[in-house]
């Protein structure tokens, strides 16, 4: 078994190397930019360009050097933490001593998908022969009464189908206090004492049993490990957008993850799911308070995962990131709109982290994670500012022409000076920093027959990579505008809730795309038009940006189509190992989805008429308190017409055994009266 902890002490040298490379490359590129801009002295606008460029370049340089480290380590076949030729994913399935809980917190999710994913994971753990050490919990914060009833029924069916009674549990919270973090904290406070570890899943997660068992064994072998995060692979979606994103993250993600794992060492990060956590350490150090003030920057902490990782590290526990542990899957939004909506929530959560940066006794790498989370969204307005300023500088020069003489008496003119070598070097460096990480991944994949075949072979891989690059170029400016807007609206005090993410393949209608992107397209067209009019030579430089904005509406509609995704699949584009050779857990998920696909799910109204559902629901209810007048009133109205109740009344009725019994008795009496 992999022993990670002795390597924690080498982290200082690894980070020293990484930071030196990032700082040196940023300083070099900024110097070049300064030379290019300041050949004839620097104006205020050019000075601003230089500052924004330095920050933005530093941001991408960090990813570049992480990818470079990942490339070297992967090419040499070395583990990113131990630097030996070993992997946590190899060897026999280990025996386990400690007990682990697998938690799936849910909130108004697609019930079939939740239980299909959980059943697939359960069956996969069972197949390892280590099931005895695991219990599974569905932790529901669902507020929709119909979904609540469906979840209970589906949970019961799943328990019976898997013979998992007493091992697969379900708990419903009446109020989702603290959102997902509060949901898990409530479980830790009530049940956590019985489990050494907890594996946290997302509603769309699936994990191989082998991976879960190895995670638990790693916790036993590394007693100072507080969290071990796996690299969750995006899979299972079929729209063009999703297949493109799945391909990109599958091809390029692992290399970057290896690089980050190398320099993060024991101060890694937690992404909120598909990770194992030491329960007692989590309880002792990760109870999150509310931030002072109101949302969006105060109140409940939305992106809790980064903060929990920082708190865990502050408590003296290590947080490891092991990308070699495969068999960890998640699903992604199926279109640009849902992707942006998810980013809007994340943006709010990450910007909150700016207030946590100064929290006492955090490790500096934890502070860096939090700062990088902030910068992940702030980088967009910075890039936008940089592009606007660059266009402004160029247009200003085109309009005013070159100033040969400064105000006052000048003996000699100032001749225009150009630095073609520096300009081209800067362009080459920026392109390399942006595109070399992709080329590193391509080289590694093409260099291995097994990997190449899983992506459909060299031909399909190469043309998919080219298509991916075109698609990325078109999408990046749209996301830049989205993120910029998010940052400004959050800073202006506008908050969003944390609704459940649509987890199916959702096509976007032209009207919705037009509503979302008209402003983007107008910005692109106006920007392109102005540059064309005043500085046509500069148009080529901004063309990819304005083109992406101008084409946002058709790009969104077309890429959200399942038909387009499948047509591209038939044409040999964006194949991933999850499509060409799905792992056992993904095959089990497919089986479970098919099994549940044609089953109808019960709803609130059926609880009042279906004895079986009502009995199940009553057996699950902890609240046996007498019902108050309002509940009795709701119960009597429900007995006459269930759909006359507001959702909040339905939820309250479902939460009270006494009121529900009253409703059912009343309904039965009415039935008997009618029969008489």
């Amino acid at each position, binding site marked *: 078994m992999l022993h990670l902890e002795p390597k924690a002490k080498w982290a200082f040298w690894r980070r020293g190397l990484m930071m030196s490379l990032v700082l040196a490359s940023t300083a070099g590129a900024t110097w070049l930019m300064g030379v290019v801009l300041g050949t004839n002295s620097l104006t205020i606008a050019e000075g601003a360009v230089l500052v924004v460029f330095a920050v933005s370049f530093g941001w991408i340089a960090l990813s570049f050097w992480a990818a470079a480290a990942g490339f070297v380590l992967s090419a040499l076949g070395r583990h990113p933490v131990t630097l030996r030729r070993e992997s946590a994913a190899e060897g026999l399935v280990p025996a386990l001593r400690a007990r682990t809980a697998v938690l799936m917190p849910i909130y108004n999710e697609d019930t079939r998908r939740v239980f299909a994913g959980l059943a697939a994971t359960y069956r996969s753990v069972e197949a390892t022969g280590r099931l005895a050490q695991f*219990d599974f919990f569905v932790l529901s914060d669902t507020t929709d009464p119909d979904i609540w009833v469906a979840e209970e029924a589906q949970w*019961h069916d799943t*328990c*019976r189908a898997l*013979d998992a*009674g*007493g091992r697969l*549990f*379900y*708990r419903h919270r009446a109020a989702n206090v603290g959102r997902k973090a509060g949901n898990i*904290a409530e479980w*830790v*406070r*009530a*049940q*956590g*004492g*019985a*489990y050494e570890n907890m594996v946290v899943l997302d509603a769309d997660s699936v994990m191989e049993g082998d991976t879960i068992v190895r995670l638990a064994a790693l916790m036993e072998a590394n007693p100072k490990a507080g969290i071990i995060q796996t690299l969750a692979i995006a899979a299972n979606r079929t729209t063009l957008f999703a297949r493109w994103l799945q391909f990109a993250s599958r091809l390029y993600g692992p290399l970057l993850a290896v690089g980050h794992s190398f320099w993060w060492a024991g101060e890694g990060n937690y992404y909120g799911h598909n990770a194992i956590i030491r*329960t*007692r350490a*989590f*309880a*002792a*150090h*990760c*109870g*999150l*308070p509310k*931030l002072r003030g109101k949302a969006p920057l105060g109140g409940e902490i939305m992106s809790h995962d980064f*903060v929990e990782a920082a*708190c865990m590290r*502050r408590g003296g526990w290590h947080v490891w990131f092991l990308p070699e542990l495969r068999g960890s899957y998640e699903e992604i939004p199926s279109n640009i709109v849902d992707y942006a909506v998810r980013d809007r929530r994340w943006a709010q959560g990450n910007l909150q982290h700016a207030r*946590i940066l100064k*929290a*006492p006794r955090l490790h500096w790498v934890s502070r860096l994670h939090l700062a990088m989370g902030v910068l992940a969204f702030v980088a967009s307005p910075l890039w936008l500012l940089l592009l606007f300023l660059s266009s402004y500088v160029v247009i200003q020069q085109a309009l005013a022409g070159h100033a040969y003489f400064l105000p006052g008496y000048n003996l000699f003119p100032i001749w225009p000076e150009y630095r073609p070598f520096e300009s081209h070097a800067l362009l080459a460096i920026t392109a390399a920093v942006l595109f070399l990480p992709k080329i590193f991944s391509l080289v590694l994949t093409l260099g291995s027959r097994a990997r190449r075949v899983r992506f459909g072979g060299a031909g399909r891989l190469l043309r998919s990579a080219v298509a991916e690059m075109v698609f990325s170029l078109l999408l990046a400016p749209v996301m830049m505008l989205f993120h910029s807007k998010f940052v400004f609206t959050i800073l202006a005090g506008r908050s969003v809730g944390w609704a459940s993410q649509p987890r199916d393949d959702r096509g976007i209608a032209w009207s919705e795309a037009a509503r979302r992107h008209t402003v983007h397209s107008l910005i692109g067209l106006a920007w392109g038009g102005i540059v064309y009019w005043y500085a046509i030579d500069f148009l080529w430089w901004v063309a990819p940006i304005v083109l992406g904005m101008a084409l946002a509406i058709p790009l969104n509609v077309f890429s959200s189509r399942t038909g387009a995704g499948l047509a591209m699949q038939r044409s040999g584009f964006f194949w991933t190992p999850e499509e060409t050779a799905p792992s056992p857990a993904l095959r089990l998920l497919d089986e479970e989805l098919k099994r549940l696909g044609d089953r109808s799910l019960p709803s609130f109204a059926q609880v009042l008429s279906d*004895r*079986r559902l009502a*009995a*199940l629901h*009553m*057996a*699950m209810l902890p609240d046996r308190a007498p019902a108050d007048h309002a509940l009795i009133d709701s119960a009597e109205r429900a007995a006459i017409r269930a759909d006359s109740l507001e959702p909040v009344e339905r939820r309250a009725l479902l939460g009270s055994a006494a009121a529900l019994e009253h409703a059912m008795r009343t309904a039965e009496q009415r039935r008997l009266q009618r029969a008489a």
Partner: protein
Amino acid sequence: MAPETELAAWGDFAPDWQRRLADRIRSGREGLNGLVSAWAAVLAGAGDRLPPDALRAAFLAIDGARRWPGQFLEARPDDVFRAELHRALPRPLPPAAPLDMPEQPL
């Protein structure tokens, strides 16, 4: 409440079974609730507890009134019935195992 009405909460027994069970409930002193508690204790086994609500949910889930009417309230239930019933028992949560989780300063 008439025994027939109480029995209806456990499913649709065939008329002859319903009559027989209703007579048994009428002849006993403790009523249906008492008989169910005793039956739950038998089904749970020594040292265990089987809440009547969970028992009813499981009995309804396996369609016990139609498929196993003779096992209802039976002092020595059949092993196959017992196994099927246990498989259908809703067990929402294991016993509590609380941990203290204090709020951290940020």
